[in-house]
C-alpha cells in the first residue's frame, strides 16, 4: 500500500500540472457582441363614430306623427387610425305593434325598412369622414283612423365594425 502511494501522489501532481498548462494553451481569443433594437410597437387604431370612440351610443328617441320624418346620422371617422381601415355599417330594424301604413326607413334614397349593410373602404387614407343618414319617414296615408298604430314602436340598431384593411 505504501508503495502505491509513492506513485499516486506524483502522478496526481503531474496530471494537475499538465491540466493547468493545457488549459492555458487551449484558450483562444473570444469576443461577444450584443445589440437590442429599439422598441417595436403597435400602430394605433382608434375609430370614431359620431365623434366618440365609446362602444355604445344612443341615437335618441323620437315620436313621429303622420307626415313627419326623423334623420339619424352616423359619422364615420378613421383619421386617427395609423393603418388603412374599412368600416361596415349594419342597420337592423325591429318593431313592436302593427307597422304603420306609409312608414319607411330610407337611406340614400333606398327603402331599407328590412335593414341593410354598407361598407366604406379605406377611410384612413381618404382623409375625410363619411356619413350615413337613415331617415324614418311616415308619409301620411290620410287615414280616418290611426288608432291601430298607437302602440307601435320602431327599434333601429346600427352597428359599425371598423377593421384594418389589408
Amino acid at each position: 500500500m505504501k508503495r502505491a502511494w509513492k506513485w499516486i501522489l506524483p502522478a496526481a501532481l503531474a496530471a494537475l500540472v499538465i491540466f493547468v498548462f493545457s488549459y492555458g494553451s487551449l484558450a483562444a481569443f473570444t469576443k461577444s457582441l450584443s445589440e437590442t433594437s429599439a422598441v417595436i410597437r403597435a400602430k394605433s387604431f382608434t375609430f370614431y363614430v359620431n365623434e366618440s370612440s365609446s362602444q355604445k351610443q344612443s341615437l335618441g328617441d323620437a315620436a313621429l306623427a303622420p307626415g313627419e320624418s326623423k334623420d339619424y346620422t352616423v359619422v364615420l371617422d378613421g383619421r386617427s387610425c395609423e393603418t388603412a381601415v374599412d368600416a361596415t355599417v349594419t342597420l337592423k330594424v325591429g318593431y313592436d305593434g302593427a307597422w304603420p301604413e306609409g312608414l319607411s326607413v330610407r337611406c340614400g334614397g333606398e327603402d331599407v325598412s328590412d335593414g341593410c349593410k354598407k361598407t366604406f373602404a379605406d377611410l384612413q387614407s381618404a382623409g375625410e369622414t363619411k356619413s350615413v343618414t337613415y331617415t324614418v319617414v311616415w308619409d301620411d296615408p290620410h287615414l280616418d283612423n290611426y288608432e291601430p298604430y298607437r302602440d307601435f314602436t320602431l327599434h333601429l340598431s346600427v352597428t359599425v365594425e371598423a377593421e384594418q384593411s389589408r
Partner: protein
Amino acid sequence: MKKFILTVALVLAVVTSLVAGTMAAYTQQLDTTSEAITTKTFSIKGNMSDNFTKAIEIAPGESVEYKLEIKNDGEVNAKLNMKAAIVAAAGDEINGLKLEVVSVEKITAGEVVDGKSVNFTTGDGKNDMLRVGETAKVTLRVTWVYANDDTTNAQDNADMDKASSQLSVTVNATGLASSTTYAIGDVDTEFGN
C-alpha cells in the same frame, strides 16, 4: 631516467601553454534580439441598419426588415455564433410577431424556432470561417402576421394597447488558430561582420 621524463613533461607543459595563446583565432560574439512579439488584434464589429435604433410602429400584416453586418475587423480568423430573437421590450410582447431570415452571406442560418428566434453560425474550417476582413451579412424580417379570426383579433387588439417587442442580436466570436506557423527558415536572419 626519471629526471629526464619529468623535465620533458615540464617543458611540454610550458610549450603547450604558450601554443594555446598563439593558437587562438579571431572570435566574435553576436547577441541578436527579435522585435517585440505582440498579440494580434481580435476585433468583431457589428453594423446594424439605421432602423435598428429607431422605434418602429407596426400593424398586423406589416413587416420591417433589419440588416445586420458582423465584420472581422481584427487580424485573426474567427468563428461566429450568432442568435437573433424577438423579445419583449417590457412586460407583454407583441404575440403576432414572427421572425424570418431573408438572406445570409458568409454565415449559415439554422431553423427559426417558433417564429421567434434563429441561430446562425460560421464554420471553423478553412472554407467557412470568417476570415480577416470579411463581413457576415444577415437580413431579417419581422412580420406581424395578419389573421382575421376572433382569437387572433382579440389578441392583436390587446397587444395594440400595451405590448411592445424588440429584436435582440447576440454574437459570440472565437479566434481560430492561424494556418501559418513560423519555422526557423521563415525567420529572416542576417549576421553582419
